[in-house]
């Protein structure tokens, strides 16, 4: 400190002691080093994902209970869903997780163009997924499977089937909402990569975005069998 201070400056200890000025461009003032900052960010995302597990957990619990109560109706209602569309969506989403992992890998190596490319691919696959989901919703609408006054279903108790479809729309709808939030995150990451914000030394945001994206995928991996496959063995 004494070497830095110029001789004209008065020796006011409070001013010259500035240990909080970041020594690296991306280090925020309240962290000691990049490692601590990276660990805090990743831990924060993990804790957030735990809250998400509990958030969806309430819905999974409700679904399980009604499925145990009304197994036949849930079976009939489940078979009304569009299996092939759901299967294609699953493949698309798993592939997007692969491209996301590639983006994180590229970020770890500081390859700016690759980061942008893989993030773009991930975004594209995510949009395909949501578009397919939208088409499914449209078909449900045509088939009068939207819960409410116009709800119709053949060959089972319409009230219990309506509970199935209520949960179906709420669960997949919330999942889709998470996808849209993911799009926002991907676009932000692409913009940051384009502005050359990341380097091999500092790419935590891409890593954390990857955690989020994989998590949203995993939610779908549980939703797909629960909603589409429960009764297909018959």
């Amino acid at each position, binding site marked *: 400190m004494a070497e830095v201070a110029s001789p004209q400056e008065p020796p006011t200890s409070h001013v010259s002691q500035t240990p909080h000025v970041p020594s690296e461009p991306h280090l925020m003032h309240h962290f000691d080093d990049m490692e601590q900052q990276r660990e805090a960010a990743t831990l924060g995302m993990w804790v957030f994902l735990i809250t998400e597990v509990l*958030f969806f957990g309430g819905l999974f619990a409700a679904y399980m209970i009604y499925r145990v109560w009304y197994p036949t109706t849930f079976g009939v209602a489940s078979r009304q869903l569009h299996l092939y569309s759901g299967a294609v969506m699953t493949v698309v989403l798993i592939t997007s997780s692969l491209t996301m992992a590639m983006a994180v890998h590229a970020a770890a190596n500081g390859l700016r163009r690759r980061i942008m490319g893989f993030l773009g691919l991930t975004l594209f696959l995510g949009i395909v997924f949501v578009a397919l989901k939208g088409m499914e919703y449209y078909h449900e609408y045509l088939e009068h499977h939207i819960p409410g006054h116009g709800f119709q279903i053949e060959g089972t108790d319409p009230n219990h089937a309506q509970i199935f479809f209520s949960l179906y729309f709420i669960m997949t709808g919330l999942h889709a909402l998470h996808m849209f939030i993911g799009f926002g995150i991907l676009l932000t990451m692409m913009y940051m990569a384009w502005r050359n914000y990341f380097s091999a030394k500092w790419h935590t945001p891409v890593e954390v975005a990857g955690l989020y994206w994989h998590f949203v995928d995993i939610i779908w991996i549980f939703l797909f069998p629960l909603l589409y496959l429960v009764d297909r063995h018959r």
Partner: protein
Amino acid sequence: METADALSLPKTHYLNAEYGIRSWLLTTDHKRIAILYLVSITFFFAIGATFAGVIRLELLTPPGDLVSDDTYNKMFTMHGIVMIFLFLIPSIPAVFGNFFVPMMIGARDLAFPKINLLSWYVYVVGAIFTLVAITAGGVDTGWTFYTPFSTVASNTNVLTAAIGVFIAGFSSILTGLNFIVTIHRMRAPGMTWMKMPLFLWSTYATALINVLGTPVLAITLLLVAVERVFHLGVFNPAYGGDPVLFQHLFWFYSHPAVYIMILPSMGVVSELIAAFTRHSIFGYKMVAFSSLAIAVFGFLVWGHHMFVAGISVYSAMIFSILSFLVAIPSAIKVFNWSATLYKGSVSLDAPMLYALGFIGLFTVGGLTGLFLASLGLDVQVHDTYFVIAHFHYIMVGGALMGYLGAIHYWWPKMTGRLYNEIWAKLAALTVFLGFNLTFFPQFILGYLGMPRRYHAYPPEFQALNVLSTAGATVLGIGYLMPLAYLLLSLKFGKIAGPNPWKATGLEWQTPSPPPTFNFDQTPIVTKPPYSYEQQEAELG
């Protein structure tokens, strides 16, 4: 070196580092965000207390003469919603946790300062929704939003209120997340887990509940809102839905929420007992781990709210036994605090009066909780004033006493000035007496069978109700007194100096009010917490 200028305020500190409304609304300083929270929750406390005042005034006489039954339903609903979701849940974590978690571990800020500010804005948005629900005619479902009344029958502003609570919930998730990461990753060199002040342990346990419980409340309220708007049947028995499922999901959060309210107060009391007995906490590890135990057990007892809701006898028995078990870690704390008093040099400053009040009132509240955890007795007193008295002993006698103790203890650190000690002691006694006068008669009323949530009652209950209303008046005065003398102290209070209580925590090793980055240099921790014996020896 600090003793020479101990009695003047530091030249620059977090309050005068920047000026103007922007410097407050865009701040990322955890101390300023704590002040933002302090102002907002005090505002909502006043609103919630006003509703309580109307309730007690109505119950002064047996017939329903002051307000109609509909209005009365709205009064107790909004009292509950405002007090629980907008005051008690944020109270100690959002104000004192925000201010002191970084200072106590020797950090410059929380791990995510911007998320911290965001959490305040989220709180404000949720609070605005709730205010809109209140001013547009109120809600009458009770703070519990039980279905199918809330989804099918009630024609009040259920949707707006539920959205408000939903949004406010995310504020406590974000605060909890911030605390967990901060305590894991930001501790100063030498600050091991076993050197952490007990306030941090209880804040950490609270944060765990915030993070694990609140999302379940969020999804439950979302289901209620969606069901109400689109007329679904998920919780409606007419369509094969199950209202008891709603109760399970609701109490899965809302029982642990009680521990969100009480655990931070327990942390505060640990700090106060140590500081004002000049004694290290007896059984530090047991007190620390009992906080975690309460957080864990707290998640396993929600069924005791539903003993009369038609759950099976076997699950009721399990929930009953588990509810008894949660008394163990709570009792560990009470016994250890009492043991700390033994042979300590106890000084009865105002914060200590609140701490001692907490121990007594929390014990009464906790023991009556065991009555309610018993399957047979609960059927008799369920939905009576016995329950009201029980949870007010926990939430007001416990949580709020801890909050008041905290504000008196840390006020000199936050503002740099001392309040009037005589008035503060007087206020503490007034609150204690007023509280007991308000709520003790309610135990008897409930035992005699007076049900909750009615605006009229048979004449034989009047004497006890008059006592209760009189107590509420005293209690109200007890709350107004700190408001007055604390605000006056900002202008006229004596300069506090860095450490007016000669306490050992890191937050006292820095000037009052603290500088923006808390410490000039990152402190290095060598001593265990509460090393009062060592400090006494050094002071001679």
